[in-house]
């Protein structure tokens, strides 16, 4: 194996032509160190996992709408234990195997070298190792679903003692594999993050100063740093939890002298920064798209950088807002209310900047732009509902209700699904060399966005009505069993079915464009950043070694007065 790897790195030497060297076929694919190939590997794994996570949502939403039915496509009806396992793994997969690999790893890998004008990541082999570890973690998490006893069912937050002791959770193997899978995934992203950070720091094209870097690269790199600095304690915690599970130590289990709240601190110290880890890349993607399709310079570039740094720093001081009623010292809740509300300030500023960027623009509503704009409109709902939860007094009521659930789906869905589609449709021509169908793209857009709102608006109402999370059948609760509430559940589920069906449009569009789409030029959107100055798709090495780009200005010089063209690529001297 290592023989092969060594061979390949030689094969990876810079080409003068665009032909592929080295092993052919799937072997080449598996062992490639090219950042673009690795990006695709992450992306397709993420896409596959999105379908699994979406399927799980389908199964448990069917159970909620029509309790007890045999869910078509699932093995019979959903037992309470299966319900919990489905919810747990839906959350885990959507965050760690969809949002992270697609937004951070796939687009990070694809875009960073191209956008900073480098031919690859600085450590291609570590990059490949990162994907391989990730791939193993994917297999582990999938295996955890089918082992004896079933998948882990203690929620994605894995609070002990439930998660620590199999006499409580009844899934001895499932919970251990789940934990190992998540741990491996973290390691994969640590390896990837080192590449992202150092590539941006050191491998920028000649002439590219810090403030000439496209925002999306900044965002991905800041997100990687946030991840790196927050995940450590949880990794340590995961080791402790693993020992609790397998050896019977007593770190978190009060029965043996441990402290279950400690895990919650470790988890949320990571968990909250984590939500910004996935938020920032999506925010960055949207900036690239909005500036391109509004033909506008980004409003206040430097302020954007300051807001993300402020968000990053603040995000380390808000974690206990998930634990207001968890039995922590009540005085702490007040402190964390302050920090939580404070974090609304930089994020609000960022949202205002998006709006300001549209001001006096020249806006084209292409498919990527629709996704990008939808991100802003929908994320605002998710953001402002966070304020209800951040006020500790109100969170006494809202904690662990569907209001929280709707809050975070209004943040996560825009990020992981809308943001991903935005990025995917925007860079599709670059990645695959073909244009996508605008008509199909718009159908897909509307049939995803409208159902999305129809799913989750009712869930806000249910949450305000006192419906708690992770309950497989509300018929046990007279206050929640009424027809009014049940019909809202049914509406949400039906909307989900529509949305899932709409994804076929997307896959059909991808497939058709890939096979028969119009050929994409180098720069179909007339954008400025460096990835648009090379072929579509870019050859190995991205540019010819003797023609590596040199940078003269920032990436948002659109509609500069006095110039004939309304864009000004970063690498054009004049």
């Amino acid at each position, binding site marked *: 194996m290592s023989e092969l790897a060594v061979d390949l790195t030689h094969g990876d030497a810079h080409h003068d032509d665009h032909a592929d060297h080295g092993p052919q076929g799937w072997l080449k694919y598996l062992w490639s160190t090219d950042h673009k190939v690795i990006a695709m590997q992450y992306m397709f794994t993420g896409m596959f996992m999105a379908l699994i996570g979406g399927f799980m949502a389908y199964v448990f939403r069917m159970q909620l709408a029509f309790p007890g039915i045999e869910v078509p496509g699932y093995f019979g009806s959903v037992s309470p234990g299966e319900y919990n396992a489905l919810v747990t793994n839906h959350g885990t997969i959507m965050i760690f195997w969809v949002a992270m690999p697609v937004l951070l790893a796939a687009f990070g890998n694809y875009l960073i070298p191209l956008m900073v004008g480098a031919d690859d990541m600085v450590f291609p082999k570590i990059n490949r190792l990162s994907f391989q570890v990730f791939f193993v973690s994917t297999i582990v998490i999938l295996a955890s679903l089918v082992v004896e006893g079933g998948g882990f069912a203690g929620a994605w937050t894995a609070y002990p003692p439930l998660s620590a002791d199999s006499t409580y959770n009844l899934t001895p193997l499932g919970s251990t594999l789940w934990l190992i899978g998540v741990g491996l995934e973290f390691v994969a992203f640590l390896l990837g993050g080192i590449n992202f950070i150092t590539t941006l720091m050191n491998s920028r094209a000649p002439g590219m100063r810090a403030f000439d870097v496209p925002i999306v690269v900044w965002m991905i790199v800041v997100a990687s740093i946030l991840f790196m600095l927050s995940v450590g304690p949880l990794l340590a915690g995961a080791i402790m939890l693993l020992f609790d599970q397998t050896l019977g130590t007593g770190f978190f289990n009060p029965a043996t002298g441990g402290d279950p709240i400690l895990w919650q601190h470790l988890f949320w110290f990571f968990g909250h920064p984590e939500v910004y880890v996935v938020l920032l890349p999506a925010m960055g993607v949207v900036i690239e798209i909005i500036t391109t399709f509004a033909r506008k*310079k980004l409003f206040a570039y430097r302020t954007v950088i300051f807001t993300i740094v402020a968000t990053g720093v603040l995000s380390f001081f808000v974690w206990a807002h998930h634990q207001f009623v968890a*039995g922590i010292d009540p005085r702490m809740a007040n402190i964390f209310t302050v920090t939580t509300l404070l974090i609304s300030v930089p994020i609000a500023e960022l949202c205002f900047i998006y*709006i300001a960027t549209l001001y006096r623009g020249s806006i084209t509503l292409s498919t990527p732009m629709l996704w990008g704009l939808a991100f802003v409109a929908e994320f605002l709902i998710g953001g402002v509902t966070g304020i209800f939860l951040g*006020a*500790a*007094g109100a969170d006494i009521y809202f*904690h662990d209700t569907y209001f929280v659930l709707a809050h975070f789906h209004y943040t996560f869905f825009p990020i992981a699904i809308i943001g991903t589609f935005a990025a995917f449709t925007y860079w599709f021509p670059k990645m695959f060399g073909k244009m996508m169908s605008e008509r199909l793209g718009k159908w897909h857009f509307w049939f995803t966005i409208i159902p999305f709102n129809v799913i989750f608006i009712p869930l806000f109402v249910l949450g305000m009505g006192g419906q708690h999370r992770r309950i497989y*059948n509300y018929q046990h*609760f007279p206050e929640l069993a009424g027809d009014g509430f049940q019909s809202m559940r049914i509406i949400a589920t039906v909307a989900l079915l529509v949305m899932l069906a709409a994804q076929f449009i997307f896959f059909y569009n991808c497939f058709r464009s890939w096979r028969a789409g119009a050929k994409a030029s180098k720069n179909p959107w007339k954008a400025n950043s460096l990835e648009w100055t090379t072929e579509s798709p870019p050859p190995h090495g991205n540019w010819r070694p003797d023609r590596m780009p040199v940078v003269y200005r920032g990436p948002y010089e659109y509609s500069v007065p006095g110039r004939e063209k*309304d864009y000004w690529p970063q690498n054009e001297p004049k």
Partner: protein
Amino acid sequence: MNGFFELFHSEWFAPLIEVGSSYAAEIDGLIALVLVVVGFWFLAAQYMFFRFILKYRARPGRRADYISGKEKHLKRWITIPHLCVLAFDVLIVVVSFRVWIDIKMTLPENPDGVIRVIGQQWAWTFQHPGDDGELDTLDDIFTVDELHVQNDQLYHFILESTDVLHSFSVPVWRIKQDAIPGRSITGWFRPTKTGEFDVQCAEICGFGHGVMAARVWVEDADAHASWIAANTPLAAAPSSSPAPGVQ
């Protein structure tokens, strides 16, 4: 000062869920305040957003303006709202503090009753003080998934768990507190509405989390007294005392 906070007592979402305790309206008021403040900014942002999208659509012959965001008269449009958001945050924080301190940081003294709530996989055990009003005496009434309290009385509850985390949640009272094995956590409530209400377990606790449902009966004085009388364990009833209710 108190008058100021009275502003934030409301029952605005009573149509969805009843207001059943002394502090429920306080919480609802805070939620209403956040709704108004955040709602205003939300609508303002969405309004500007969609206005710009509609107004500045690409038209032949018109170019976008070149605006860097450094122009003072334009930057204002970001900075001022940004400071306003900060100011409104302070308002929310102040009211939230008030609510939080009332409910979670103060324990009103001299309760009319103390009950113990014990979570375990997957049922709630309630320990009522019985006729003598004291916990841990012979006449305590233990029930499973069934809590009985008297309306308009101040109660303390002692929350415990025997195995994993659970969370004691009575939506109509707007009460929620996690139960932690190995600890007992004390809180309070004062029901203000008679009737029969749901108790949910709000923290995932394993296979049966979804069926960890209990009911609370809030009764007026007479009904509550007769419930106590009817359920006092025989062992505790003094042999000389007459039949329940006669006294």
